[in-house]
């Protein structure tokens, strides 16, 4: 499992496999928003939590189809499926690799982007915390979507249509944490819900993803 994780991470970093791409996309969205709504600091500060969350979600979405499609095309997925490691483990480690390559950089870079969006000072802690706890769910749910569409040629658009509705609860609680943080309210309950979604998704969804992958590899 560790070896698979290391392999996927190395591929992501070296082979132009999306590492940095998600981050650049995040940056572009954050740069474009002020052009769209105007440079007013108060307005930007108010919409910053939501924009940052939506941007993070879209950046995650961008690299989802890479989770399985390359391995599916060159046959390494078949090898992985016949290896002693259960397919659930393969799915989980691939989702974790995706998170380490896409989600974690977003979390680390979020304060810088929050600065660009003139997020009020109180918001920094909550936005980083909510992204840290929420982006794993995005990767795991995304891996399920990627497993569903792996056999379909040019399934990228379909993947977005399938995955985006599944992202709704994560987005609601994540943005709510950040918004409450900015307004100086207690953000405990939504943060707990967000963590609950992430951990439940991490614990349960690999089974569904593996079942779906088995169908696709049949």
């Amino acid at each position: 499992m560790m070896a698979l994780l290391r392999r996927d991470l190395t591929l992501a970093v070296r082979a132009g496999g999306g590492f940095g791409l998600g981050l650049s996309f995040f940056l572009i969205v954050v740069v474009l928003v002020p052009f769209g709504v105007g440079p007013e600091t108060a307005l930007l500060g108010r919409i910053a939590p939501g924009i940052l969350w939506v941007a993070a979600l879209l950046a995650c979405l961008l690299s989802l189809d890479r989770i399985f499609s390359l391995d599916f095309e060159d046959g390494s997925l078949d090898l992985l499926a016949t290896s002693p490691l259960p397919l659930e483990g393969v799915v989980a480690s691939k989702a974790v690799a995706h998170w380490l390559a896409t989600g974690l950089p977003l979390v680390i870079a979020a304060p810088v982007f929050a600065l660009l969006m003139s997020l009020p000072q109180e918001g920094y802690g909550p936005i980083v915390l909510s992204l840290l706890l929420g982006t794993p769910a995005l990767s795991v749910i995304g891996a399920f979507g990627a497993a569903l569409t792996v056999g379909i040629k040019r399934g990228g658009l379909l993947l977005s249509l399938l995955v985006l509705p599944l992202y709704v609860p994560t987005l609601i609680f994540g943005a709510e944490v950040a918004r409450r943080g900015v307004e100086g309210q207690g953000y405990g309950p939504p943060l707990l819900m967000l963590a609950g979604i992430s951990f439940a998704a991490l614990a349960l969804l690999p089974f569904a993803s593996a079942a779906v992958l088995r169908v696709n590899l049949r």
Partner: protein
Amino acid sequence: MASIWEYANPLKFMRTTERLLPVVAVAAAVCLIGGLIWGFFFTPDDFRQGSTVKIFYIHVPSAMMAINIWGMMLVTSLIWLVRRHHVSALAARAAAPIGAVMTVIALFTGAVWGQPMWGTWWAWDPRLTSFLILFLFYLGYMALWAAIENDDTAADLTSVLCLVGSVFALLSRYAVNFWNQGLHQGASLSLDKEENVADVFWYPALVAIAGFVLLFVALVIVRTNTEIRARRTRALLARERLG
């Protein structure tokens, strides 16, 4: 004692449903026309909302159906995954577009009613929002069916999507409650006599709901049987090409 699983045989299913279809279709037409005419012309106007309240006879049944059709798809998907009866998977497939249309009808009639009553076509109210999300789930489900060529693979994948989607749809339903306060009133219909609407509105509403359910059953029968026939034709053509 005949078991329900006998109807997993496509032939038996088609024979029985085709005998039932005229009955169901006529009953659906009678209930729909009767219920709607009763509701529209023979009930008093609400003392504050005037005649706009009458859209209720379309809005409430379609909204109920939109949710219950997803539930029916969940059950048939489970039956397909566990017992692998093709009729079950086909029924789920046949139900999805009807569910999507019901969602649109509920949203549309709600908007038409909301404009004069709330002063807006649309508000980000929890109920309205969760219906929009439900509509997106229907779209994704149908798109996945359409995208995959192999029938069994498509049935498997959409069934799992339906299961996972149900969990997330429920989660979204409660998450949006958390996210915004509601504008939509609570449920008007209830089995509890105290909370229910007055009897004059209740009986025509019941007839209209029965009409929507029967209409749904009739449409599912037609669509499932069409799909069974289409598959047979394809199988025959494939056999001819081989022979």
